[in-house]
């Protein structure tokens, strides 16, 4: 195990909230606004960490456990994805399953915390979240199975660098994973993080009742989730040769993530949210793309 892989984790811990700033800056520049500062997510997290908290009388310990479990799960996930071809500390065959299911644990407890408030709005968001993620899961795993078939490897740390981006299969998988990425991170066209109406939200509405350090944990976990899933896509697009000097592939990967954030910002500026009924169709389409990529590899 290399020291560099731990430096990569620290980079993730430090830089993840920056991606949110980049997305918001991109959206602001499309709309001709100045927009919030690039580091706004950091300010928010720090401010929330310094506050006290208010809890609803309806809630139980589940509500308090939700953000803690979520942050712990995504921190372990951070130790599974490689940065720029450098193997992650927790790399093993089948680690992609642990990644997918850790994000599942995070979702499970976020949903329970939402239901613990007894609010209909949060129940509604929770209900949508579990449906969309259930359909996104097959798309994610089939896409990675396609890459596993192409490279003959079952570990993210080794299969992502070994994939060749310029083959049609990998392009299809990247497209499918991008859809899953947008869905899992509650971005447009699935969910609008900036909407002001509780009725239309998915992820944001589930965390309405959290405050103080709990809310800081939630903000930080969603930034880290964006980072983790972004790295899977970026790892496929910028495969880096093994053995190259450390700073080069890592800075490529981080530039890739910044580029991905800009693309997300552009998508959010150009598209409207889909109707809720259309979302499952888009996710099934992503699953079909993954399956089609797998069939192409079988040729």
């Amino acid at each position, binding site marked *: 195990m290399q020291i560099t892989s731990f430096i990569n984790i620290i980079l993730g811990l430090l830089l993840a909230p920056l991606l949110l700033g980049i997305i918001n800056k991109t959206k602001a520049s499309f709309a001709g606004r100045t927009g919030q500062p690039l580091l706004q997510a950091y300010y928010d997290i720090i401010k929330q960490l310094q506050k*006290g*908290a*208010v*809890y*609803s*009388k309806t*809630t*139980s310990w*589940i509500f*308090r456990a939700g953000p*803690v*479990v979520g*942050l*712990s799960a995504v921190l*372990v996930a951070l130790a599974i994805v490689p940065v720029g071809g450098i193997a992650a500390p*927790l790399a*093993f*065959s*089948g680690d992609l*399953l*642990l990644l*997918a*299911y*850790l994000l*599942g*644990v995070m979702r*499970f407890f976020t949903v*329970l915390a939402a*239901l*613990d*408030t*007894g*609010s209909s*709005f949060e*129940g509604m968001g*929770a*209900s*949508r979240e*579990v*449906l969309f993620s*259930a359909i996104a*899961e*097959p798309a994610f*795993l*089939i896409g990675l*199975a396609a890459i596993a*078939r192409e490279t*003959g490897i*079952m570990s993210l740390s080794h299969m992502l660098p070994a994939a060749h981006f310029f083959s049609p299969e990998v392009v299809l998988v990247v497209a499918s994973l991008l859809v899953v990425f947008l869905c899992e991170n509650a971005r447009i066209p699935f969910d609008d993080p900036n909407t002001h109406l*509780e009725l239309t939200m998915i992820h944001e509405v589930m965390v*309405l*009742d959290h405050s*103080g*350090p709990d809310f800081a*944990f939630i903000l930080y976990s969603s930034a880290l989730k964006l980072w983790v899933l972004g790295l899977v896509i970026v790892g496929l697009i910028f495969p880096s040769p093994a053995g190259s000097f450390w700073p080069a592939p890592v800075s490529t990967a981080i530039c890739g993530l910044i580029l991905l954030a800009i693309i997300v910002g552009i998508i959010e500026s150009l598209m409207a949210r889909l109707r809720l009924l259309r979302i*499952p169709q888009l996710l099934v389409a992503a*699953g079909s793309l993954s*399956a089609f990529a797998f*069939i192409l590899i*079988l040729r």
Partner: protein
Amino acid sequence: MSLVLIALAIIIIGGLLALAVCKNGSLSTLLGAASTVVGCIIALIPVLQTIYYGDTTIIRLAWNMPYGSFFLKLDPLSAFFLLPIFVLSGLAAIYGREYMMAYRDKKWLGLSWFFFNLLLVSMAFVCLAHNTVLFLISWEVMALSSFFLVAFEYEKEAVRKASWIYMVASYLGTAFLLPMFLIFGSEAGSLDFDGFVQGLSSGEANICFILALVGFGTKAGIMPFHVWLPVAHPAAPSPVSAIMSGVMIKTGIYGLVRTLTFLGMPPLWWGYLLLAIGIISGVLGVLFALAQHDLKRLLAYHSVENIGIILIGLGVGMIGWSSGMPIVAALGFAGALLHVINHALFKGLLFLGAGSVFHGAHNLELDHLGGLIKKMPSTGLFFLIGSVAISGLPPLNGFVSEFVIYIASFSGAMSLNPSSSLSMIGAIAGLALIGGLAAACFTKAFGIVFLGEPRSKDAENARESSPWMTLPMMILAVACIFIGLLGAAVIQVIPPVIGVVLGNPYTGEIRIASNYLFSVTAGSAVFIIFLMAISGLRSFLLSRRSVGSSGTWDCGYAAPDARMQYTASSFAQPIIDLFQFFLRTKKNITMPDSYFLGAARFETHTTDIGRKGIYNPIFKAIGSFFGRMKVVQEGRIHIYVLYVVVTLLILLFWNMR
């Protein structure tokens, strides 16, 4: 082996004594439960020894039945299925001591304890029997004793109907097993299982496989033969539901796997068939579970789902076996078998939890419950552990077995020929979808029952059950965590078991999986360390700050009410609408029709697809056929005399030909 027989004798004697004093509720409960617990503990010693050392012991006595002997065999495969039977039954008996006492004045509890102990002994004999006659007798005793347990509250019409459906389905299943054993027996010239070994032509083998799949599949509850399961399991008392769902349906899986040992190398399509049935049972099982409003019925449908996962594992394993891919074969079977044990643990836990909810709140209707975690903290915690485990999430045991099946499917998808690897993609997609929907279903079940505000008086007045009921749940919950964290060690018991089926223990392949699981354990350990560190950080941050409490944010509405909470039905509605094609949920809506508030109603009802689409039409057709046959039953003596004469004449001419 003799220890197992001693243990079973203790259990059956305890049952008979309970029967003898059946009018005395407390005494018969004491006798029934104590003998079960003692028997289970004694029996676990040889079972664990057999699994650990991988040896085989037999008892073979002469008896009056032709073509065979009184033949019992304890090999690693039997022991592997006996392990959950004894563990769960012992715990359910402790739990039942308290749970059944609530019925002390209404029922003769001795009768129920007799059938409970008989069910346990017959399940053990099903796994031990190595002779067809003995096997079928145990199989029928198992069905009958559980029938009487399902019919416990026979004064209710719905319960009578449920037990009746269960009885009919059981006999239909056995009707497929008899010809299968006849084919085996006539080919081998003996009804002992030892004689069966692999002498069939491929045509006969195919027929036997299909018969075994239908016969044993009916007991296991695979789609579309599952119709009895969602009606019978909720009708039984909770400890019995736990045993039926946790271990009794697994005897179907045991029968199927044991039959595979008689059939030898399977053709490829058997694996495809098992995989397809597994995916269908898994996905439809969890979808129907989502559509349920009753907690125990929801859990019963989840048994169909988990049997689906087990069949996916077996199917993947068989595809690997026929294609000569040892890692796919070994890990497919290993994952399926591990899931047998894991499902027994968490489903037992969940059914006991549901029973505790019923005991405390006297209601199982999801939309009438809520907020129970404050009234029943231990039940709530254990039910949560069971929910996370059944959703296949780390760091609990459900993830371990699903992970092994996933690894088998990924290995198959990476290296098999195109058509087989596409089937592996089906397995991966199926498992992923099942996992996601199971998480949806259990966030619904746990969230609506235990979280939020109470939705009815029953839920408001709920109280925690006594330690007699929470202690067995705690042991099961600890077992779920234990297997979840030590998957790498637990999977080491698998090689001798799959050695019985595949003829090769595949120790090397299992060791590879064990290494992967070790990394999973490392990840889980890091996860738990983070959990503790972050909750420590949280309490440190909040220790010096103001922590207030207020109402839930309600968008400015000033008078929220418990009835405004999201209900189980509304939570599941988007999923149910999306999968309307399979579920065919009927909605009954009465809209408020005036401009001022008036009465409104909304009702949904989901009928089982197998019952509506397959069983009802078949039974209706049979019924109408025999209805038309009634013409011959005139009821007048001379018509019957005419029948006799005509038959005699026909036989006479037949002979003269």
